[in-house]
């Protein structure tokens, strides 16, 4: 029983080709994007800028997107250079794909097991940078690629790939693109055995990461400066997204600062967002629930839990129809002002009576509230003597308080 195969899916190549790129000639064919998961970090092969020495080659390798079981690139030769990984289709040598090392975040290796077709090297990828040269598919759902080495060779490939990644030769500017020179100068820190070698490598790794991050931020800064104001088109689009999610004009720290006014405005926003959901779910919800709803509605400019807490404390100040309540156990909830605790205790006790006995889960299921809230209600009813508890290895259950109601 194999997976369903579209007869057209196996040997297809997409037609998307950017006119400004020179490609090795490749037969364009029809493809449906929904047949693919997409491997958009791969690009069509272009010759390298400088001389590329192939460090390792492995035949009979397939490329698979994320966790996909099928691929259009199942049989090929994988080559490793200092800059990138190249895959050439065995049946169609003109069809070649490349993956630049700079797009690789981290690498994993899995040995061949009884159930797999071969040893695997899994590459976790960085997000597609803008201006990335096109490849087989435009959009990718997965953030990793699997290379399955059906004839072995994954061990060596993995080791050399790691080595190549650590050198980051592509970082060198074009002036030092001559491979020989750049390579030798980089060698010492990655060699060396024993603990000191490992430590040195860790320190180097750390420094490189730090460098990468600072560089990335430099680029971001430059990008932002270049962009300046976001243009009107984007702003209106953004605003329309927000509207569809429920927040028309998010209160942000940039507009109102972080003072009391900010929290009062935030409290108003919270009221607007939560009023209807509260009415629909019985009048009470825990603070984490409220937090999720608010941030989901905002989409961007998310608020922190502290902000939520501070804003909820202002609910009374703005005469909101909702208010925050703290149970004895410390659990915070927001609830409609109309909800009265004693009323809820009575309701809970009645439900326990109806059910004979109940634990938090049962109550939660009956009242369609969260188990946390159900527990709080049970504890509240117990505190006013309406129910009593049975605590055993079977769990914490509550019964009607017959101690006080049953006459002997």
């Amino acid at each position, binding site marked *: 029983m194999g997976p369903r195969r579209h007869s057209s899916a196996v040997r297809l190549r997409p037609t998307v080709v950017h006119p400004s790129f020179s490609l090795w000639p490749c037969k364009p064919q029809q493809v449906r994007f929904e047949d693919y998961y997409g491997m958009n970090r791969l690009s069509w092969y272009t010759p390298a800028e400088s001389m590329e020495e192939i460090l390792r080659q492995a035949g009979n390798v397939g490329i698979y997107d994320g966790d996909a079981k099928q691929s259009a690139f199942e049989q090929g030769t994988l080559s490793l250079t200092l800059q990138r990984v190249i895959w050439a289709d065995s049946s169609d040598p003109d069809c070649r794909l490349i993956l630049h090392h700079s797009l690789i975040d981290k690498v994993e290796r899995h040995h061949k097991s009884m159930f797999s077709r071969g040893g695997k090297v899994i590459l976790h990828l960085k997000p597609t940078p803008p201006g990335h040269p096109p490849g087989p598919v435009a959009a990718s759902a997965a953030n990793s690629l699997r290379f399955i080495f059906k004839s072995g060779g994954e061990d060596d490939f993995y080791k050399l790939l790691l080595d190549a990644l650590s050198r980051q030769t592509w970082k060198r500017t074009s002036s030092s693109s001559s491979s020989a020179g750049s390579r030798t100068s980089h060698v010492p820190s990655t060699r060396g055995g024993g603990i000191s070698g490992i430590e040195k490598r860790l320190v180097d790794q750390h420094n490189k990461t730090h460098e990468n991050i600072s560089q990335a931020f430099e680029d971001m800064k430059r990008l932002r400066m270049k962009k300046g104001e976001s243009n009107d088109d984007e702003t209106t689009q953004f605003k329309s997204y927000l509207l569809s999610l429920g927040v028309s004009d998010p209160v942000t720290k940039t507009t109102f600062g972080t003072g009391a006014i900010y929290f009062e405005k935030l409290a108003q926003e919270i009221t607007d967002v939560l009023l209807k959901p509260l009415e629909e779910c019985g009048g009470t919800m825990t603070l984490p629930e409220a937090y999720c709803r608010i941030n989901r509605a905002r989409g961007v400019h998310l608020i922190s839990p502290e902000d939520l807490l501070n804003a909820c404390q202002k609910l009374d100040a703005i005469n909101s129809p909702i208010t925050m309540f703290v149970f004895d156990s410390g659990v915070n909830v927001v609830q409609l002002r109309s909800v009265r605790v004693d009323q809820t205790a009575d309701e809970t006790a009645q439900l326990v009576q109806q059910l004979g*006995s109940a634990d938090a889960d049962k109550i939660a299921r009956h009242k369609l509230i969260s188990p946390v809230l159900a527990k709080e209600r049970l504890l509240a009813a*117990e*505190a006013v*003597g309406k129910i*009593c*508890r*049975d*605590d*055993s290895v*079977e769990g914490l*259950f509550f*019964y009607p*308080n*017959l*101690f*006080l109601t*049953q006459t*002997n």
Partner: protein
Amino acid sequence: MTADIMAFTFPWEYDFPPFFTIQPNATTREKQLESWGQLVLHYCHANNIFVADVIALSESELFNNKNIHRRLNHKDVLTVLDYLESKKCVEWVDRQKKQCHIHWQTPEQWAEVIHGWARSNGFINSVVTFEDLIEGDDTVQESFHGINRLALLKALEVLQSNNRAAIVDIDGVQAGVKFL
């Protein structure tokens, strides 16, 4: 007067699972401990238990209802017994609280029983030693057989206070009583 044969039945609380969890609500707990207290005393009375070993009692059906799979743990058994101590129905034998006297009758109640026995068996105007009262062959059938010395003394003091007995010293120690 022969001992009353009490048909002992457990009260409704015994089959109520929450009975075996000491309640956090104060009002509920007060009621619960009251019920436990009565149950302990009735059970000990029915089984003539004067001195209880706490562990043995914990294992017994008194604190262990196999039908509903509930039991009071050791800490809670002590809570119940301490409650009874506060009501003067329990007296700890040792500091470690491993054994205790259970006074399921008040000294006044004992006084009546003992005096009744003395009357029925012709011991008025004679002296009976404490030993004979507690362990003698003449009292084997009696409910106070095996009673603890302190409880006996208290009962006899009650009788003494209303002139129905006089405690007698033997070799300088209170060791006997003359029923009047």
